[in-house]
């Protein structure tokens, strides 16, 4: 067990801590590799063209957050506190954006509001390319994440608080402000910081609809890919790391408090039908849902017609990816291969890691280090991680250099990129398992691995499935980290979307993005089927 802990610790050090450390060091080095102290930073802050991005990034992140969080709150309120019809359907719609790369909303918006867009007039002469487009795309991209947090927060309500409020003759608005909002406040805080972090670190939306409006994430990309200025790329990355790490820390505290609010004796709140209110909620959800569906629908529609919006005759020509400048159909196959590897190997590594942290005995220092390393990826934006990987794995002195631009490095990088959420999910499930199982096994002279295989894994199987689907979906959609790491034979579908959009093949980019969407829908359906089958098979011993 100790050997495994050391092994896993080394794995995370090599794939996470060391690359990040090297990146920090590079930001302090000149082009020749000599130590120049803060010179790069001074240059950065004294170049208005670069420094301006900090303000731009903060501005679009702020605006997106201010719009997304209230929308998510209303939508979540409709799902959890009203009796409006089709709640299941509305929930699925709102979660759809999770299944597409963050490049897709930009593409959809270009079709809707671009120079030839259907709804161009709605912008009253403003151009979609710029902060408006970025914010609109980010609302689409971050809404499901904020929604999931809000739904959880609003589901935790204690019905007795409302009964007490009614008994004290509180009006409905007073009840809302004195019971509902305080109960959901940590959810609101958490959602705010999650959305802010996602926007400030997102690279897909500003890349597609940002136009000349520079933000930190696109700057990293431009410095590295466009100008090959790795030192300055590292500087921007470090600057990007600051708000992300800060937001992560606050979110972490907020989540802890939310758990503490939950008392075991709380009576769950069940909404009662209320015609007028339910209709209002249905209306709000329909408006928000339509926006999400419109972006997906127009992307798919444009991918199937000759030249949107002028020639609307049907064609499959945009699916001829091999002639469109991206990685072709090969990239789609690569994505699936990468996602399967990530889901398989990633789930195994992360679950064993969480098991060692939670159930390991003794060696407390090692377990604390493991836990810290496991939490770190959450605070590291994908672009930063990708750049750190270039510095580390492309170093001529590194024996692991052979991995650069291979499938293996894409898988390793993606596992680390999405490590934290999966780790926390596994940890939650493991905490619910009786801590004495290992002890009983020891008294029965059974080795640890036998209990792990015969009891821990079977009991945690639903969670293991959840982790693997989470990794699969994210591996399919991720762009930010892998965009620095792919090679000619290992281009991914999501990267292909980016490259085709870059070369003006927007319809093909939309087609590929929608291919990713359908693949993820398929994977999710398969996952739901498996989970259902598992539940039926194990209903004998699982308490419902």
């Amino acid at each position, binding site marked *: 067990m100790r050997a495994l802990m050391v092994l896993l610790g080394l794995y995370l050090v090599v794939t996470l801590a060391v690359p990040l450390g090297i990146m920090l060091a590079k930001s302090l080095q000149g082009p020749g590799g000599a130590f120049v102290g803060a010179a790069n930073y001074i240059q950065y802050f004294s170049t208005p063209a670069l420094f301006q991005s900090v303000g731009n990034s903060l501005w679009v992140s702020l605006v997106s957050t201010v719009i997304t969080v209230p929308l998510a709150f209303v939508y979540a309120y409709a799902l959890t506190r009203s009796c409006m019809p089709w709640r299941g359907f509305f929930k699925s719609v709102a979660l759809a954006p999770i299944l597409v790369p963050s490049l897709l909303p930009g593409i959809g918006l270009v079709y809707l509001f671009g120079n030839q867009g259907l709804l161009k007039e709605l912008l009253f002469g403003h151009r979609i390319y710029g902060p408006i487009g970025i914010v609109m795309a980010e609302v689409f991209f971050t809404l499901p994440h904020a929604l999931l947090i809000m739904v959880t927060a609003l589901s935790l309500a204690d019905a007795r608080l409302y009964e007490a409020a009614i008994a004290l003759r509180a009006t409905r608005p007073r009840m809302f402000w004195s019971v509902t909002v305080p109960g959901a406040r940590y959810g609101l805080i958490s959602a705010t910081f999650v959305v802010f972090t996602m926007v400030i670190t997102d690279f897909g939306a500003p890349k597609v609809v940002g136009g000349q409006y520079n933000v930190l994430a696109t700057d990293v990309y431009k410095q590295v890919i466009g100008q090959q200025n790795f030192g300055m790329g590292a500087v921007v990355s470090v600057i990007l790391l600051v708000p992300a790490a800060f937001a992560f820390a606050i979110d972490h505290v907020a989540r802890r408090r939310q758990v503490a609010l939950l008392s075991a004796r709380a009576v769950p709140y069940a909404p009662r039908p209320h015609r007028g209110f339910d209709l209002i909620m249905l209306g709000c959800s329909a408006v928000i849902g339509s926006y999400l569906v419109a972006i997906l629908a127009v992307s798919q529609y444009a991918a199937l017609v000759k030249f949107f919006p002028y020639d609307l005759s049907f064609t499959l020509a945009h699916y001829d990816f091999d002639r469109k400048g991206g990685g072709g159909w090969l990239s789609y196959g690569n994505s699936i291969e990468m996602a399967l590897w990530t889901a398989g190997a990633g789930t195994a590594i992360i679950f064993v890691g969480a098991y060692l942290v939670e159930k390991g005995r003794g060696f407390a220092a090692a377990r604390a280090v493991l836990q810290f390393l496991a939490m770190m990826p959450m605070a590291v934006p994908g672009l930063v991680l990708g750049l750190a990987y270039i510095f580390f794995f492309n170093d001529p002195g590194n024996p692991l250099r052979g991995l650069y631009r291979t499938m293996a490095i894409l898988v390793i990088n993606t596992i680390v990129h999405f490590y934290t959420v999966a780790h926390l999910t596994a940890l939650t499930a493991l905490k619910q398992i009786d801590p*004495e199982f290992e002890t009983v096994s*020891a*008294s029965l002279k*059974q080795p640890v691995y036998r209990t792990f295989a015969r009891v821990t894994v079977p009991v945690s199987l639903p969670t293991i499935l959840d982790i693997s689907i989470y990794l699969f979906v994210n591996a399919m959609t991720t762009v930010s980290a892998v965009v620095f790491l792919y090679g000619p034979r290992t281009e991914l579908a999501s990267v292909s979307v980016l490259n085709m959009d870059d070369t003006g093949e927007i319809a093909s980019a939309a087609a590929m993005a929608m291919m990713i969407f359908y693949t993820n829908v398929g994977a999710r359906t398969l996952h739901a089927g498996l989970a259902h089958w598992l539940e039926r098979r194990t209903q004998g011993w699982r308490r419902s």
Partner: protein
Amino acid sequence: MCFLGPSGCGKTTLLRAIAGLDIQTSGRIEQAGRDISALPPTRRDFGIVFQSYALFPNLTAAQNVAYGLQNARKHRTEVARRVRELLDMVGLGGHGDKYPAQLSGGQQQRVALARALATSPGLLLLDEPLSALDAKVRVYLRQEIRQLQRRLGVTTIMVTHDQEEALTMADRIVVMNQGAIEQVGTPIQIYREPASPFVADFIGVMNFVTGTVSGAHTVRLGQLELNCQTDGMAPGTAVTLAIRPEDIVVEEAGRDEDNVFEARVDGLVFLGSFFRADLVGDVLAASRLRADLPVELVRRRAIGEGQPLTVGLPTGRIRVYPAAPIHP
């Protein structure tokens, strides 16, 4: 053997040290003359039942019991036979195919017991095995476990905070407090001759009053001079006297009691099989004594609140401790 004490007194820690789950910082643990202090749990000889039972939820009762047998290079039919034997032994013969969630708390408890006994360990450790059960099931299982343990003759250590459980089940009780052992003895010794005020107070109900040693075998309490064992304490020493409520006797015609004095009933509570009377008296000064009076006596003498009584404190039942009282 029972470890008894309030929560946090270290009894579970001691049990876990014996099992090798938590390593002691100092001292040695020996089993059958062998020093096992440094051995990991897998190389010690014991079976254990936890408060939560820790039954594997995804395995049936039979699979749970078989868990420890399967790597001992035994033939499958032999394992199956042994599992059947164990389940029959704990009275769950027909329940082998059920999952833990389908069994009642008491049944789960017995499966856990069968699993712990499967490998025929030389030592059985029970960590609060009955505390998660209903009161009635608990009383029934007390006897079951006791009988099973007698029949198998396996040395058993049970941790409990329930004094009744300890008194009814144990051959010997170890009373612990704040990490230290207060007394080791049979249930009757522990109850009749508690070695310290802590033990006296923790087990059963006890009256504590303060007094002063006044002679070779006498202690002054208020205006009373009580005859009792003073263990050679010097006159003038402040002492705590302890006597159980059921040992206080009401004087009746034709009986000659020790340490007789006049008291008055200040309160009377009906507790089912007896009445508990709160006694005060001029001779007691500020002290009060609780006395358990038989229902029959209360009825016959029509004892009520405010009634004067002549009571006696039998010399042999008074314990004298050289310490400050726990209860004022």
